[in-house]
């Protein structure tokens, strides 16, 4: 499949278009096309806010509520991140999307030798509850929801988020955290996995089960087609793997004796936006429909609102180029436009300098302004699902649905997604696709302004976020101080209880909350899991 294919004749007229997911696009669409794909208004479209939610989950779309703006933010020490969070909120951002550094994501403390050179680099460094107390200082956690971009140790961060909320006097039942908490996608792309598949999925089950009563407004899992697509998957593969992964988490919680309607309404998705605008819109509309149908038909979900595909539609790191970086501002705007035309609940954009490093305040605010401008200046809130009924959009939405189902069938055929991730089958499909895409880009088959057309010689660096290492030193110093000041006996006691609970196969969440409150570190809690679970052995390499 590789890239979208455009065939032209000798006069440069386009004679055929095939989108990345394999859908052919014709020069013109009419009622006969809808008939050809078997389109039915009631079954395929229905009213907005009605099953199967193709037109969005709210009857009035963005009229009743604009999308949440949630730029990915966090770097250096908790102090520095807190400052940046407050800056973004003061500029009108309506939710947080917290970036953690790699040691935190991989369950290492800042003073661990494995953390060397990485502390505070790509996100903020968190070692203990004390750091969360600094990071979320003066932020109203009952008003501002927080996405926590962490997966392998998401259970620990969610426990810590509850602990910090309680410490600040907020009611855990009213706070809204969205830990990413999708380990299967980490194994397919992005790579921040620690534990083997089975215990890793079980930890996710623990967070979902625990949230039902303890944090009912929290979205305990955010299934990320986003990173799967960043790793090379086509839009159809992105959605198909995301739905199958979500089903794996549902199955884990069902085994514990819950009714699917108890918990599935809090699932959320993180999906990617870059590339062909029509393909993106069709993808999101088809995804909403397929997710709802999957829940209703496969799992017998009863309540309509539990069938909503809610999510962050984010654009779209892999679409950006290092060449002519300012062009990425325009790319971001078009990606956000695609997301808004498709009825996103939350949008975040990669900033124009992210092909180089994490964003500066300047570039992050430009992304936020892009989202605000679309919201308030050009009429995207006027009416719900404005592309509905277009012969073209409805036809390719149906075709996209079929493509997604075909990709799902491929995975089911080899034993399902858990199996396919364990053996590396999915990873190979994705990396093969990535290679084909790259070849398409390098041959010029996929046109990219500044990269293979309209180029301008040597690319110039823009003003970049600086990493100096000073933050790392400060963080290690404050960790040292924490280790001196905390009650060691309490730390040991809570860690021991965590270990016993883990070995006994109990839900670890209440034990993690106690560890956090005793100021046990992320590294210490993760160590318990590493000892009990072991580590994931990466399969079939490329």
């Amino acid at each position, binding site marked *: 499949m590789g890239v979208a294919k455009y065939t032209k004749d000798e006069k440069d007229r386009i004679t055929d278009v095939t989108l990345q997911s394999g859908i052919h696009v014709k020069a013109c669409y009419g009622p006969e096309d809808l008939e050809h794909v078997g389109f039915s208004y009631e079954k395929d479209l229905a009213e907005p806010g009605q099953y199967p939610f193709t037109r969005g989950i709210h009857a009035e779309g963005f009229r009743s509520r604009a999308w949440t703006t949630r730029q990915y933010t966090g770097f250096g020490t908790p102090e520095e991140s807190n400052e940046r969070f407050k800056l973004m909120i003061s500029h009108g951002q309506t939710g947080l999307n917290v970036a953690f550094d790699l040691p935190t994501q991989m369950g290492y403390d800042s003073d661990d030798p494995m953390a060397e*050179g*990485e502390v505070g680099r790509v996100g903020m460094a968190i070692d203990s509850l004390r750091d969360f107390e600094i990071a979320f200082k003066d932020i109203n956690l009952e008003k501002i929801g927080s996405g926590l971009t962490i997966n392998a140790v998401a259970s620990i961060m969610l426990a810590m988020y509850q602990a910090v909320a309680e410490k600040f006097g907020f009611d855990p039942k009213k706070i809204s955290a969205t830990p990413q908490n999708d380990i299967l996608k980490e194994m397919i792309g992005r*790579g921040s*996995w620690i534990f083997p598949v089975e215990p890793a999925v079980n930890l996710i089950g623990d967070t979902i089960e625990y949230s039902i009563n303890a944090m009912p407004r929290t979205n305990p899992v955010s299934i990320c087609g986003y990173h799967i697509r960043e*790793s090379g998957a086509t839009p159809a593969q992105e959605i198909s793997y995301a739905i199958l992964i979500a089903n794996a988490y549902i199955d884990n919680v069902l085994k514990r004796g819950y009714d699917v309607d108890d918990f599935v309404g809090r699932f959320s998705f993180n999906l990617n936006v870059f590339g062909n605008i029509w393909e993106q819109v069709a993808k999101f509309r088809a995804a909403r429909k397929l997710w709802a149908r999957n829940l209703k038909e496969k799992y017998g979900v009863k309540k309509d609102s539990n069938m909503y595909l809610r999510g962050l539609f984010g654009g779209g790191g892999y679409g950006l180029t*290092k060449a002519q970086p300012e062009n990425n501002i325009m790319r971001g705007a078009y990606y956000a436009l695609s997301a808004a035309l498709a009825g996103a609940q939350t949008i975040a954009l990669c900033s124009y300098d992210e092909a180089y490093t994490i964003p500066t305040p300047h570039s992050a605010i430009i992304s936020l302004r892009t989202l605000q401008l679309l919201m308030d200046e050009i009429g995207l809130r006027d009416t719900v699902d404005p592309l509905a009924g277009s012969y073209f959009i409805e036809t390719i939405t149906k075709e996209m649905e079929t493509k997604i189902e075909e990709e799902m069938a491929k995975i089911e055929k080899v034993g399902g997604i858990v199996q396919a991730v364990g053996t590396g089958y999915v990873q190979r499909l994705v990396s093969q696709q*990535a*290679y084909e895409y*790259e070849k398409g880009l390098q041959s010029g088959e996929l046109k990219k302004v500044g990269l293979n057309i309209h180029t301008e010689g040597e690319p110039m660096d823009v003003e970049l976020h600086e990493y100096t290492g000073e933050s790392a030193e400060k963080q290690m110093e404050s960790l040292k101080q924490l280790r001196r000041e905390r009650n060691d006996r309490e730390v040991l006691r809570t860690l021991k209880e965590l270990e016993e609970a883990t070995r006994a196969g109990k839900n670890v969440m209440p034990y993690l909350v106690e560890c956090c409150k005793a100021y046990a570190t992320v590294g210490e809690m993760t160590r318990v899991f590493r000892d009990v679970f072991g580590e994931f052995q990466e399969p079939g390499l*490329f």
Partner: protein
Amino acid sequence: MDTRPIKILVAKPGLDGHDRGAKVVAHALKEAGMEVIYTGLHKTVDQIIRIAIQEDVDVIGLSIMSGAHIPITEKLVKKAREEGIDDKMIVVGGVIPNRDIPKLKELGAKGVFPGGTPFSEIAGFINENAKKS
């Protein structure tokens, strides 16, 4: 003349898990006729050196996306010297700002290939500069 293919270790040092680039380049170098070994994720510099020795590769290629390319390259070059394998060519790829390229070369990276470098350029460079041991 030695006709065996160039043997290259594509390595992912450190905690960064973004391996699209590493895998894509591994595919491309394989297609260009090289023997490619991929370390998998989360390898320490020591582990990479050990694999390079065991597999007796001609080239070590580091793929780094987190921004830690300078400290990691520095450490790897030092370790390679200590282990007496500094005859192996070291190349670096990933998310690398242009301003860091001279520094990486000074540290001992023979070639630096920021994201988006054409496969033909990477393979061509390695073919021309790798010394088979």
